[in-house]
């Protein structure tokens, strides 16, 4: 056992234990660690963004280097603060509109291509798609199951008609696929959360207590 003498390791370890103490019940140690975290995170973010974004990308060029055209983004950015003045608060729509317009313009073609068209292509029964499963002749079976799953799940979320007859059968099959999806997601969530616990324990046993390498 080789306990660390580094004060930063000790602070980190004690903060971790303080947060873990919430598992027993709410207590002052937990609340202390929580407030410290929020304060430090905010302080760090403000200074970081000042030194790495606002200062080098706006204030330095505008006020120190005299690049006057930076006045335009400066003024548009400042319009965000008009929210606090009721009489001119409508001006906030200008930066929001510019921001939304840019992102929507950039996003629509790309997301449509990547998230919709490619996914639809991947659902179609083609020999190329059978091979993506790396399952030999079973690739056909998996592709068919995928197609049934997609169609039936879509049927389940089709609310314009009563779920009776063929639509009823399809939607009942669809709910099975949805439930399997939820089950898989929950299983992965357990794995993720346990992994995070393992990571913290590896830190406590290693760098802090020196029990393991």
């Amino acid at each position: 056992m080789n306990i660390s003498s580094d004060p930063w390791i000790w602070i980190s370890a004690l903060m971790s234990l303080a947060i873990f103490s919430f598992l027993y019940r709410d207590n002052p140690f937990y609340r202390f660690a929580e407030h410290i975290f929020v304060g430090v995170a905010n302080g760090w973010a403000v200074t970081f963004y000042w030194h790495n974004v606002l200062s080098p990308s706006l204030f330095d060029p505008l006020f120190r280097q005299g690049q006057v055209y930076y006045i335009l983004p400066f003024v548009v950015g400042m319009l965000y603060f008009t929210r606090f003045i009721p009489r001119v608060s409508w001006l906030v729509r200008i930066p929001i509109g510019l921001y939304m317009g840019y992102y929507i313009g950039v996003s629509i073609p790309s997301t449509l291509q990547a998230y919709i068209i490619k996914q639809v292509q991947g659902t179609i029964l083609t020999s190329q798609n059978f091979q993506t499963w790396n399952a030999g002749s079973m690739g056909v079976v998996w592709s068919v199951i995928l197609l049934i799953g997609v169609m039936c799940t879509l049927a389940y979320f089709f609310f314009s008609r009563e779920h009776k007859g063929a639509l009823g059968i399809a939607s009942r099959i669809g709910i099975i696929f949805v439930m399997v999806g939820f089950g898989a997601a929950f299983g992965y969530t357990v794995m993720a959360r346990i992994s995070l616990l393992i990571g913290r324990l590896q830190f406590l046993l290693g760098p802090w207590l020196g029990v393991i390498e």
Partner: protein
Amino acid sequence: MKIIETLTNIDRRIIYLILLIVVLLPLLFPSVEKVRVMAPVEKLYYAIDTIPSEKAVIVDFDYEPQTAPELDPMGFAILRHVFERRIKLLVLSLYVQPLGLAQNALTQVTEEFNSVAKTNADSIIYGRDYVFLGWVPPPIIPILGMAESITSVYTVDYYGNQTDTLPLMQEVTNYNDVGLLVSLSGSDIPKWWVAYAQSRFGLPVGAGITAVSASEFYPYLQTGQFSGLLVGMKGGAEYEEMVERTLKIKVRRKASEALLSLTYAHLVMILFIVIGNIGYFAKRRKK
């Protein structure tokens, strides 16, 4: 019936304690079992392994301390793989918080290589073998801008050097010189690379993600939009296995050491779910 009553009313703190014990014990006596490598991990490994010598790989470190236990092992293993194969490497982050983790991984892995290097050619040298580009906000700017010119987007690197003075950046100018981008992220970022860099400029993308988001990302592997996929600590352990098996790099494998804890924890969870369900149905029958 009294047993069922007792089992279904176990105090949550007892469950936490049992979980802590089963996770802790294997960590106190770490051992690495043979890991079975799944196809998505193999695909990413060989996607990196087969990058032509004139092309570079970009590794996007975009995870924060809260997801580092899952994604750090992937990052370390990929860096070892890239450096061992002497593939040109660019490292970046689309957000601020991951910068420290990326720097930590680069420092540690380059030290591993340089401590055993005998000549200058064997060493991993900054500017020649890799460049840490750092961070430029907002994320859409570097994703789109690097298609035209990387040095125009990242005029200075993480350490403040002018990027156009670095030898590696003379060879890697834009996405045409990049063979693969690997995005390690606890959020949606790998999908952004697919949407903006792949569908517009044809950049091949691989991903390392947290287990919690796995079911959201698998469809992109099936369609071939991801060149490979690493999921959670298990994915990290599989990549560590590939690196050790094929490149004979023997280092501590943090993700592989954790697999026993992960397995026992899952068994305990399954046990409690079964107990809970037995109790629920027994109570319902009684009513």
